[in-house]
């Protein structure tokens, strides 16, 4: 099982908004495939899967904000 974490995006950036999920619960995802897109100011940042697996949970929905380090999804 692995957790998809909102990564460090730069100095002084404490949060970002989830703007788009490339997958949904139950989807099989490949290593390095795009999982979720985050928006901060004028940048859209994609987070990729660090392992292959099935999306077990999505914890932050599109349009919601999350803090750096927060768990966004779980892959099993």
């Amino acid at each position, binding site marked *: 099982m692995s957790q998809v974490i909102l990564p*460090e*995006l*730069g*100095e*002084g*950036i404490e949060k970002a*908004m989830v*703007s*788009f999920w490339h997958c949904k619960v139950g989807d099989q995802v490949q290593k*390095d495939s*795009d999982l979720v*897109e985050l*928006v*901060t*100011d*004028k*940048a*859209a*940042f*994609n987070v*990729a899967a660090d392992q292959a697996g099935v999306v077990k949970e999505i914890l932050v929905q599109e*349009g919601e904000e999350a803090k750096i380090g927060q768990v966004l999804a779980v892959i099993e």
Partner: protein
Amino acid sequence: MKFVDLGLIDYQKAYDLQRSAVSDVIAGGEEQVFLCEHPSVLTLGRMSDERYILAPREDLAARGIEVLSIDRGGEVTLHAPGQLVVYPILDLKKYGKDLKQYMFQLEETGIGFLKSFGIDSIRNPGKTGVWSEGAGGHKKVISIGVGVKKWVSFHGMGINVSTDLKLFSLINPCGLGAPMASVESLTGRPCGLKKAKEVLIEKIKFNFIEGKFQYNT
């Protein structure tokens, strides 16, 4: 870093070239910077509010202006001939791995570009982009919106060089209700895209290759 002049190119074709270049750079290939102009098109960033498009869709369609939803940050943006668009496909791990710093560096490039044409410009805190100073008040000259995948950048900046500024009445630029300006409107002199591209390449080299910029937030 390779500079590629795409000339006047359809938005989607340039987007496809960007995505291909992003894959190349992720795989360790040479960084690329695309320079181009687009036929008139409106693009909506993620989380954009469609109410910022002021013109009725049928009017836009009649004028052949497409509306595209795309994967960059920012609100609605207009691209049109006379606007120099730059898409840097860069490995941001080499430039601080910091989204704010990258925006700052793009703004710094834009400020240096405008200075070459005798235009004083500034950042506007909380409103990413480059704004002219002067008697006419602050006007937006350069819009910025980027995408990042595995710390490789795409999308970039739109610099109004000789853009028909009346076209901006179709939208509420960036959702800010911002008055817009161009190099030509601010200097009162014609400015060709060829010259603008040469100056921009010089400023990108200065800020990104030679690293001669100071990051002070």
